[in-house]
């Protein structure tokens, strides 16, 4: 049994402008100890999707449909109080993008850690404090005995993110969600944080979901990748497979728009246009408005997930057996070998 199984999850926001279908029917699974990357442009609904898992969606948003099974328990059936007591923090923990603003500026790092530990484990103040120092040490904060009593603004950006990770580890969660964990950091610090994630994943034996728009992060730490576009998952595959053999035209253009050290400038082929609004998404396939190989059916049929028996799913009509057309005309990508991926050009 997988650790987490999400089926047909739908999270909508009911705004005055209309219903925003931020997450519109996504499915994925996660095995214990596995790490999954969810990639996509900003606005694709990645963050909403993972926050839905923990029931963190607030007015005017709501999880309207779907199933989230965590260790066999249906999370959508739990009450707010049960989620708070039993899931948040102690089973699933989250690391936010901007640690600076995710930590409360008027409390010391230590008191915030201690509060979380006490709330979720029922340890005493002294025990919790000892544990907090241990955690800070684990995530690589020097002099944890002293620095525990400092305020977040006294920490550097990288250390703030490490403190956030310490908080995530505080109650031995089975799943850590990292929501753009390195986006706000300097490139030089990013690598250290990613190393830390890999390290703790091993030592604490947790699963991790990385939400990111940065394929470099995915390459570094993820076993498997799900590509999201406008509220839907368009392709899921193990990282190497996805990288070598991207099937969905969106994934292809994503990989194309990655600047690699050996790519010349004319080789860069960014995705054209901007993502449409979630209020009135295109009919049929949502990517069709920007898809270079869209055909008539794309506006009429919502592509199902095509599973060719391997671990590689794609939601694109090009892969329908009834599709009279030939294999999709992949556009030529510049030979890249093992070039490192750095990020989308829209960043």
């Amino acid at each position, binding site marked *: 049994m997988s650790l987490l199984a999400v089926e047909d999850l739908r999270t909508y926001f009911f705004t005055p402008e209309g219903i925003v279908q931020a997450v519109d029917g996504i499915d994925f699974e996660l095995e214990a100890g596995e790490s999954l990357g969810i990639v996509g442009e900003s606005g694709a609904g990645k963050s909403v999707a993972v926050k839905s898992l923990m029931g963190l969606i607030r007015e005017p948003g709501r999880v309207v449909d779907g199933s989230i099974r965590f260790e066999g328990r249906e999370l959508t059936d739990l009450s707010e109080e049960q989620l708070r007591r039993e899931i948040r923090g102690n089973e699933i923990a989250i690391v936010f993008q901007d640690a600076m603003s*995710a930590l409360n500026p008027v409390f010391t790092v230590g008191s915030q850690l201690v509060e979380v530990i006490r*709330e979720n484990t029922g340890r005493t103040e002294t025990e919790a404090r000892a544990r907090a120092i241990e955690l800070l040490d684990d995530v690589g904060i020097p002099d944890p005995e002293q620095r525990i009593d400092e305020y977040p603004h006294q920490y550097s950006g990288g250390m703030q993110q490490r403190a956030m990770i310490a908080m995530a580890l*505080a109650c031995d969660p089975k799943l850590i969600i990292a929501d753009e964990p390195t986006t706000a950091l300097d490139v030089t610090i990013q690598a250290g944080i990613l190393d830390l994630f890999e390290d703790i994943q091993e030592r604490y034996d947790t699963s991790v979901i990385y939400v990111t728009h940065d394929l470099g992060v995915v390459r570094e730490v993820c076993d498997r990748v799900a590509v999201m576009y406008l509220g839907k998952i368009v392709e899921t595959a193990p990282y190497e497979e996805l990288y070598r053999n991207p099937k969905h035209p969106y994934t292809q253009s994503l990989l194309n728009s990655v600047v690699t050290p050996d790519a010349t400038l004319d080789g860069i082929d960014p995705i054209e246009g901007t993502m449409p609004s979630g209020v009135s998404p295109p009919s049929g396939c949502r990517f069709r408005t920007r898809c270079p190989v869209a055909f008539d059916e794309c506006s009429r049929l919502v592509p199902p997930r095509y599973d060719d028996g391997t671990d590689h799913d794609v939601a694109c009509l090009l892969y329908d057996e009834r599709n009279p057309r030939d294999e999709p005309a992949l556009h030529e990508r510049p030979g890249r070998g093992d070039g490192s991926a750095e990020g989308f050009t829209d960043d």
Partner: protein
Amino acid sequence: MGMGRYVLRRLVQIVPVLFGVITLTFVLMHALPGDPVKIYLGLEPSQELADELIEHYGFDQPLYVQYVDHLTRLLQGDLGRSFTHRQPVSSLMLERMGPTVTLMGLSYLVALPTAIALGVYGAARHNRAGDHASRIVGLAGISTPNFWLALMLIYVVAYEFQLLPASGYVSPLENPVQSAKLLVMPVATLATAQMALLMRMTRSSMIEELRADYIETARAYGIPERRVLYRHSLRNALLPLITIVGLQLSFLLSGSVIVEEIFAIPGMGRLFFDSLVVLDYSVVIGITLFFAVLFLIGVLLTDLAYAYIDPRIRYD
């Protein structure tokens, strides 16, 4: 952290402002119409008395000499003598300080906790019925003229229902029960607008805080909603409130004039009013100065409180 030096520097910064206040009041009061001697001694003063007065106050000197004298006396802590009360302004003010301080202290004591509770309530129910109601009540509170409110309270509470005495003042030390009865309406009058303003501030500040990322963090780590509200948000939301609390001193001092006048409370506000009517200018200057000092110190204190609550503020 250099806190002592910070306080010292702030106190030094107050000096030029006070100097300005002294100069302004001096200039204003010496622009007074009429001959002060005649105003205070009647239309036909005895020459002896008039001379004494002129001698004492230096009315025969040129204005700049009077100004320098005025400054010198103030530096020595001498606020001058009151014409009408025939006693030093400082001792007069000391006598009248009790009621005003009691009134303002009680007003803060009532307004602040109520305002915070209601403000948090409104923010927690943002855009629901309770919030809309509190918003309207808040607007109504700041729109109510306090003198009107005072009169209506007297009419309804003291006259129609005879629940409380209409006016007067007894020190709480002398007769606590009677004192409390007499203070209910004045404090209610003074605290209404103050509370409404603070409540609105708390609400908007809380709404902002509840959108902060660290609130989402707290929720994501299973912190109970009540603690999210009162520990994590409120402390941050209080920051802008503290500044307002200091600035409200000015508002309350203005209010004390009206409330003390209507409820016949022998405080500094009433003393100011009475002295201004008869143009007893040393008292007017003395009280104005005192109010300004009180206000400036109040603002300094709130700035210190701000720095205490917000660790990011450094004293520099």
